């Protein structure tokens, strides 16, 4: 990729924007920009909520507490709607996913050139500021969720129960190989669809911002303003979808057929 990035003109501009700041080679390479921005955003989320949690009272809530409680209630309603078991992990997990993904996506609303420009002033050549346009970030989250799905499936149904579900459903024991194949595809499709949906939406959104940035400057506001407004909807919606699907998948893992 590094060689492509030296290409000139529009292609070069686009490729430059979509190239991560990496160290290392091959699989052990690390996308420093993704790691950095997602950690900073995660820290922001945790700091803000911890501040509210420390000051939380049952009395009249302040502005911060009100906002945080609104989010908590929103997530709690979503969890209660689809998950009927008892699990202390799911609601905090859903809250973390929603806020973190939202903050990732929110980076998309910064003008595409600002942060890379600051980066280049500091001597950083490549900078991708939106973690959700990095497959590593979305897959890390969806694979974590997938591990939790498998973990809770085995924990709730027992290893044999989970295996039985994989082998004998939905068509009964006589079509065992077919059932197994179907079930495996179904399970594996979960993390892949979760990760690719988020990645695809945000990558496309970012790409369109970059393309708008290539247009003459008098056209840019006309296009990027409506797209940014529309994007506010998309980034929230994608965070919401990721959260709700996680809740639904985990509640399916808890259900015994």
């Amino acid at each position, binding site marked *: 990729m590094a060689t492509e990035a030296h290409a000139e003109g529009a292609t070069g501009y686009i490729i430059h924007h979509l190239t991560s700041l990496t160290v*290392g080679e091959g699989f*052990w390479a*690390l996308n420093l920009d993704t790691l950095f921005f997602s950690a900073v955003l*995660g820290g922001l989320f*945790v700091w803000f909520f911890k501040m509210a949690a420390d000051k939380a009272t049952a009395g009249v809530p302040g502005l911060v507490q009100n906002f945080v409680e609104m989010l908590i209630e929103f997530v709690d309603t979503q969890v209660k709607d689809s998950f009927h078991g008892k699990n202390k*992990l799911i609601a905090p997990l859903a809250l973390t996913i929603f806020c973190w993904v939202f903050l990732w996506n929110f980076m998309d609303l910064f003008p595409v050139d600002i942060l890379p420009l600051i980066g280049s002033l500091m001597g950083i050549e490549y900078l991708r500021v939106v973690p959700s346009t990095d497959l*590593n970030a979305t897959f*890390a*989250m969806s694979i974590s969720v997938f591990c939790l799905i498998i973990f809770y499936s085995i924990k709730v149904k027992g290893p044999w129960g989970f295996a039985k579900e994989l082998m004998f459903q939905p068509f009964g024991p006589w079509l065992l190989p077919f059932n197994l194949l179907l079930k495996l595809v179904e399970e594996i499709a979960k993390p892949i669809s979760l990760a690719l949906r988020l990645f695809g939406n945000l990558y496309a959104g970012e790409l369109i911002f970059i393309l708008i940035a290539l247009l003459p400057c008098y056209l840019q506001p006309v296009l990027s303003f409506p797209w940014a407004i529309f994007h506010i909807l998309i980034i929230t919606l994608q965070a919401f979808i990721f959260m709700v699907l996680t809740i639904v998948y985990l509640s399916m893992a808890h259900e015994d057929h």
Partner: protein
Amino acid sequence: MSINATLIGQMITFALLVWFTMKYIWPPLFDSLEERKKKIADGLAAAEKGQEAMQLAEKKAKGVLKEAKEQSSEIVNLAQKRANELVEASKETAKKEGERLILVAKAQIEQEKQQAKESLRKEVSALALRAAEQILSAEIDKTKHQDLLSKISNQLG
């Protein structure tokens, strides 16, 4: 663009964030929400109770007021009755007294009439006797006809 070790780093960050949220963020916020919910519910229940108590007190007050009204009207009635009775009674006594006075007066009149009659009769008899005496004095010897005279005087008296 390719999958690399960033994935692992991201998973670690994610796990840390979830752990932190689960341990330090969700419980206090959720508890405060639940507590406030309970507080509000308690407050509403208390308000309802208070309203109920107020209604009960109002009812009670109405009852007491009604009773008092009834009692007072009873007392007024009783007093009126008693006053009527008193008036009647005094009328009765006045009437009786009047009648009695009339009777007494009548009796006195009768008595006086009787007395007047008696004295008149005595006077008439005395006059008659004197007249007879004068008539008879010429002819009748007082001593001789003493018996006769006293007999007549007795008859007249």
